[in-house]
């Protein structure tokens, strides 16, 4: 495995956690939660982009995670850590079945199936009386001990998963994903089971998306089908595109930038959706490699640059 630059990551993590410990304002706390959950969702989306697929079902898996955590906690009475984990595992398991069926398709087909799946799952929640129908579920509370520490907790869990996905990306597994994006047939001819690898990548990303959903449920205490439309994936895509998709730092930078600016725009009474749409367009037209692409100057693995 290549150098993971662990000291930098740990330094950044300690700084971020120390920062969250200082947060005492409820509004700022909610923005911090949004950033951490958004970053985890964006990194999950980008993880599937490594193998060349745009995974709009990310939104569905965030929703499945949130509803699984909500249902296991409020209906089944599971303890908080188990309910949190159940969100990730639930999303991961569903994604294995979904991936097994759909990952034989590629490109626009896969994107459209993910889009349709997201909307179909959303309709299922709203038709289910157990899950609260269109008004959703309420009372998804974290333990009292975490009162006032939710931003710290959410940043810590998100960071742990992001670091895990980063380590996977830098491992030989990550190289297989890039190879599949570049030239799937060559990867197949040297004995690699492409479908199995795609499902593994997809399920890993969906587990992370599911945990993002769990965190969302515990941060807001209330969830409803409207929270998990395809817009979740569209926002995540904006974070990735604005930040830059060449490295995992891109979606992190993009999330911080867009959530902070978006929160500001909301205060002005402007529609944040227009804001996000404009951000994607500007990023694609003016900064094809995102904000981090501007700073870095060249791709992380490029030998010579151009």
């Amino acid at each position, binding site marked *: *495995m290549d150098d993971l630059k662990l000291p930098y990551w740990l330094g950044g993590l300690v700084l971020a956690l120390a920062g969250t410990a200082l947060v005492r304002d409820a509004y700022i706390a909610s923005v911090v939660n949004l950033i951490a959950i958004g970053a985890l969702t964006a990194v999950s989306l980008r993880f599937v982009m490594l193998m060349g697929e745009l995974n709009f079902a990310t939104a569905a898996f965030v929703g499945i995670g949130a509803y699984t955590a909500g249902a296991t906690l409020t209906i089944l009475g599971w303890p908080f850590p188990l309910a949190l984990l159940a969100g990730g595992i639930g999303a991961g398991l569903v994604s294995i079945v979904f991936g097994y069926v759909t990952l034989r398709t590629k490109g626009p087909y896969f994107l459209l199936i993910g889009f349709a799946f997201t909307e179909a799952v959303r309709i299922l929640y709203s038709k289910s009386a157990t899950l609260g129908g269109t008004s959703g579920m309420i009372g998804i509370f974290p333990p009292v001990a975490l009162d006032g520490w939710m931003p710290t907790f959410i940043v810590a869990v998100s960071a742990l998963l992001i670091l895990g996905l980063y380590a996977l990306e830098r491992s030989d597994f990550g190289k297989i994903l890039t*190879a599949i994006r570049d*030239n799937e047939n*060559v990867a197949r*001819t040297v*004995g690699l089971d492409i479908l199995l690898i795609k499902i593994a990548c997809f399920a890993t990303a969906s587990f992370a998306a599911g945990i993002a959903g769990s965190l969302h449920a515990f941060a807001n205490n209330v969830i409803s089908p409207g929270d998990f439309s395809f817009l979740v994936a569209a926002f995540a895509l904006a974070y990735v595109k604005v930040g830059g998709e060449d490295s995992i730092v891109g979606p992190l930078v993009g999330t911080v930038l867009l959530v902070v600016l978006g929160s500001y725009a909301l205060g002005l009474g402007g529609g944040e959706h227009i804001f996000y749409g404009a951000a994607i367009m500007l990023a694609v037209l003016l900064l094809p490699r995102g904000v981090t692409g501007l700073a870095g100057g060249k791709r992380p*693995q490029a*030998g*010579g640059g151009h």
Partner: protein
Amino acid sequence: MPPDTEPVLLRTKGLTRRFGGLLAVSDLDFEIRPREILGLIGPNGAGKSTTFNLISGFYKPSAGELHVFGENCTGRSSLAISRLGLVRTFQHGSLMRSMTVADNILLGTIHGVKGGARRRERVAQTAAMLGLSPYLSEEAGNLPHGLQRLVSIGIAFAARPKLLCLDEPLTGLNQTEVASTLTVLERIRDEFACSVLLVEHNMKAVMRVCDRIVVLHHGQHLATGTPAEIRADRRVIEAYLGHRHEH
């Protein structure tokens, strides 16, 4: 069905592939033996590529049988066949352009070699043999064409196949590059006891390096023999070489 006992790596019996009304490969019998470089030649449209895709499992035969390393592989997937030890390259862009040369070659080691250190050792060994050691950290897509062709062979050979199938590996190479690639093929055969199936248009190179040659014409088997026999074969001259001499 009992496995073949003869020392033959690959054998086809009546291998046939139809595309609608077109008979691309018809009733083809041929075999690949241990430690040989077998040339598969024929004019454009003779069925070389189809044959290549049939034996590597990318196409399913319409009729006939395919035996690889003594196992009946008729109708098996490309993945199953590659895991038996038959690894192929593609005519166009048989590499990962955005990845470094080292990571390209590494890809060939992942299935067969466990452990990062041993994989990297295999990469270094493979690169050294192909003369790619100085370029390991270069992005493959930035390399000159000739080196990219060698990277393609490197990915496939890093898997240490028992049978390496190369689809026109010499296209676009200059004379020096052709000569060094042929030397690599001979070393693969002699030092690693790996047979090579070579589909190639460069007749001079085929005649020089191949132990035996199979000639296809209109999807059918026309002749099999040593380079000297093929050169002297009247049917081959009429169908193929004669046609080329008109240019």
